[in-house]
C-alpha cells in the first residue's frame, strides 16, 4: 500500500495498445505489466501510468501531481522516441506581450490586441497600461498554442504600420513557459 502511494505517476496520451505493448504520444513503445490490460487505455485520451522496477507500466489515475510523459525514463521504452517531447497541452502558460507605441499616439487611446481567434476583431483584448507609451498583457494560452496577433487602437482603421507605413506581418505568441513577445509599433495606419 505504501509502495503504491509512493509510485511515480506519469501522464500519457496512449496512441495504441496491443498485447503487452503500449504506444504513447511521441511514438515511444512501453511494455505492460503482468495483469495489465489494454482495455485501460483509450487512444487519444490522457491517462496515468506507473512504472514498476522491471520497467513495465501499469495504468493508474493521473492526478495533478502526475509527471509529464517526457519524464518517463528512456530505459522503460522498448522503442524510444528519437526526440523527447512533452505533449501536455492541458496546462495554461502565460505569454507576456509588451508593446511600445510611437510618441504620436493619442495619449488617451487604449491599445488592443487583435487575434485570429476572434476573426481579427480590432478591439478583442484591451492591453494594460504601463506608462504613457508602454502597454502589456499577460496572454494565457494552452501550452503549444501559436496565436497570431496584431496591435490596434480599437478599429481596423487604426492598425499598426511599420517604418515604411506598410502592414507588418502578424506577430506570433507561442505558448511556451515564460514566453515573452516584444512589439515596437513604428506607426499607425491613421497617423503619419
Amino acid at each position, binding site marked *: 500500500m505504501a509502495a503504491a502511494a509512493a509510485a511515480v505517476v506519469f501522464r500519457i496520451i496512449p496512441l495504441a*495498445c496491443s498485447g503487452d505493448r503500449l*504506444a504513447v504520444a*511521441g511514438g515511444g513503445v512501453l511494455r505492460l505489466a503482468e495483469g495489465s490490460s489494454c482495455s485501460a487505455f483509450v487512444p487519444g485520451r490522457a491517462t496515468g501510468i506507473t512504472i514498476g522496477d522491471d520497467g513495465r507500466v501499469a495504468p493508474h489515475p493521473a492526478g495533478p501531481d502526475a509527471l509529464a510523459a517526457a519524464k518517463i525514463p528512456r530505459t522503460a521504452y522498448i*522503442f524510444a522516441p528519437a526526440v523527447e*517531447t512533452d505533449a501536455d497541452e492541458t496546462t495554461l502558460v502565460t505569454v*507576456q506581450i509588451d508593446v511600445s507605441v510611437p510618441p504620436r499616439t493619442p495619449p488617451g487611446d487604449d491599445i488592443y490586441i487583435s487575434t*485570429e*481567434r476572434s476573426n481579427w476583431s480590432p478591439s478583442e483584448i484591451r492591453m494594460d497600461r504601463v506608462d504613457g507609451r508602454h502597454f502589456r498583457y499577460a496572454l494565457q494560452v494552452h501550452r503549444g498554442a501559436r496565436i497570431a496577433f*496584431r496591435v490596434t487602437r480599437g478599429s481596423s482603421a487604426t492598425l499598426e504600420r511599420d517604418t515604411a*507605413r506598410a502592414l507588418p506581418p502578424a506577430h506570433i505568441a507561442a505558448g511556451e513557459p515564460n514566453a515573452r513577445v516584444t512589439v515596437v509599433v513604428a506607426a499607425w495606419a491613421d497617423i503619419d
Partner: protein
Amino acid sequence: MRRCLTAALVGAVCAALPQAAYARATVLLQGGSVSFFADTLAVIARDGASLRLVDGTHAVADAVYVDLKSDRAVLAGHARVEHGAAAAEADAIAIDLDSNRVDLLHVGTGVSRTTRTLANPVPAEIDAQRFAFPDVDDRYAYIRARHAAITPRANARFSPATFPTSVGAVPVPSYLYTFATAAGFGVSTLPGATFDQPYGLVGTPTSLTAVHARWENNDPAFALQEQLASGDTAYATGAIDTPLRGTSTSGFNAYQRLGTRYTFLVDGNSAFGSREGDATLGAAFGPAGGRLTYHLQSGGYSSFDASLRSPDEVLIGGITLRLTADIGYDAQRGGDLYPYTVLPDGRSYATVWRHGLDAFLATPIVRAPLGTTIGFTLDADRTWYAFPRHGDTVTAAANASKKLSKSLAVFAGYQNAWTSQIYPDRQALFFPIPLAPLLTPDGTPYFGWYAYNGTAVARYMNLDLQYAPPTSSTSLRLSARHADDFFQFDGLGRPLWELRFDAQFRPFPNVGIALGRSYDFGWGGRRWVPGWSFAITP
C-alpha cells in the same frame, strides 16, 4: 436604386473572386465527435474517426489528431490507411498533409516510413514530433462538431457546430473558422457597432465572404462583407451594412504594397446619401517619408495633399522632433467653396491652395518625484491659404503614471488643444455675431456661442486607477474624466464629467469577457446618463 447598385457591385466582386465560390477543402475529418481548440489550432476526432485527403487517401482509426499549425495528422489506435488499391494497417500512423510522407508505427516492430502510395515501407527511427498527440480536455473545445472540412493554412468548416465554452452561442448547421493570418482579414469597412459577430459563408486562403450579425443603435442588424487578401502585401475589402434598410451604408478599402518603399491605398464609403473616397500613395525614404492624397466627395468637393515628413530627430535630453510640410488645395466644383461662400464673390472661389508646416516634439518617458514617470508632447501646426487666411493648432499633452504595487497603478493625463482660424481684416465677416443663440439638444439656448470668433479650445483630464496582476488576464480599471472645452454646454460637445469602470477577465480558459459601465454626469439636462459595453471573446 443606389442600394441595388451597391449590392450588384458587391455581388460582382464576389463573383470575380479567385476560387472563392469553388474553394475545396483538401482534408475531410469526421468522427463521433470532432473537437476544435482555437489557440492550439488542434482538431481531434474520436469514436470512429476517419480522414480523407483530396488525393484519394482514406484513413480510419480510433482517434485522429490534425495539427493545423504544421499540417500533419496522427491516427491513433487500430489505424488503417488506403490509397487506391494499396492499404496498410498499423497501431498508429502519422501523415503529412502538405507532403507525401507517411510513418507507420507498430508496437511490435517500431516505425516504418513510406509515402501515400504505401509502397515499400522502410524501417526508420521514431520521430517524436510526428507522433505528438495533444493532451487536451474536450470540455474546453471552442467548437464541437461531427465533420470538419479543412483547407490548410486557410480555414476549417465544422458541421454541425456547437460552442461549448462560448456563453450564449447558438448551435449552427455549419461554421467556418478562418485561421489565415493575411493582413487583409483584419480589415473591415463596416462602421462601429455595439456587437458584431461575423459568420463565414465561403472562404479560401485568399478570400472570405461573411455575414455579420450586429447590434447597432439599439437595433439588430446584419451586414455582408467580402475580404480578399494576398499575404500581407495586398488586400481588398467591401461591405454593405443593413442592406435592406434606408440607413444602409457601404464601403470598400484596398491596399497594395509597391516594393519596399511605396504603398497605395484607396477607400470609399457611402452613407446617408453622401459618398466620399480617398486615394493615397505613401512613400518611405529610410526614416523619412511622404504621401500624396486625393479626396473626393459627393456634392463636388475635393482636396489634394502632398506631404513630406522628416525622420524623428533626437535632440538634447532625448527629445524627438519631427517636421511635416504639406501643400495642397481644396476645391468645389462650380465654385462656392466653403467657407468662402460668405463673400460677395463667393461663387468665384472654386479652388484655394494652401500649404502648412507641423512641428511635433516628444520627450522620453522620464522618472519624476514620488516614484512617478512622466512624458510630454507638443504639436504645433500652421496652415496658410492662398486667400488671406491662416489656421493654427497647438496641442500639448502630459501623461504621468505611478506604480502603487505590482498590480496596482494610477495614471493621470492632461491635454490642451487650441485651434484658431484667422482671416485678417475679415474676421467679423467669417464669424459674425449670431442673430440667435445656439440651441443645445434639449432646446436650452447657449449664449456662450456669441463669444465664438474662430478660436476654440479643448481641455481634457483623466485619472485612471488600474488593477492588473502581472501574470493574469484579469484587469480592472476605474476612470474619471473631465472635459473643459469651448464650446461645450448642456449636451453640446463632450460631457463635462465621465466616470467609467472596465473589467476584463477570463472565467474559463477559452472564454474572455470585457465589461464596461460608464456614467456621464450633469449633461444634456439629465443627472447622469448610464452606458454599458459588453464583449465575449474566445
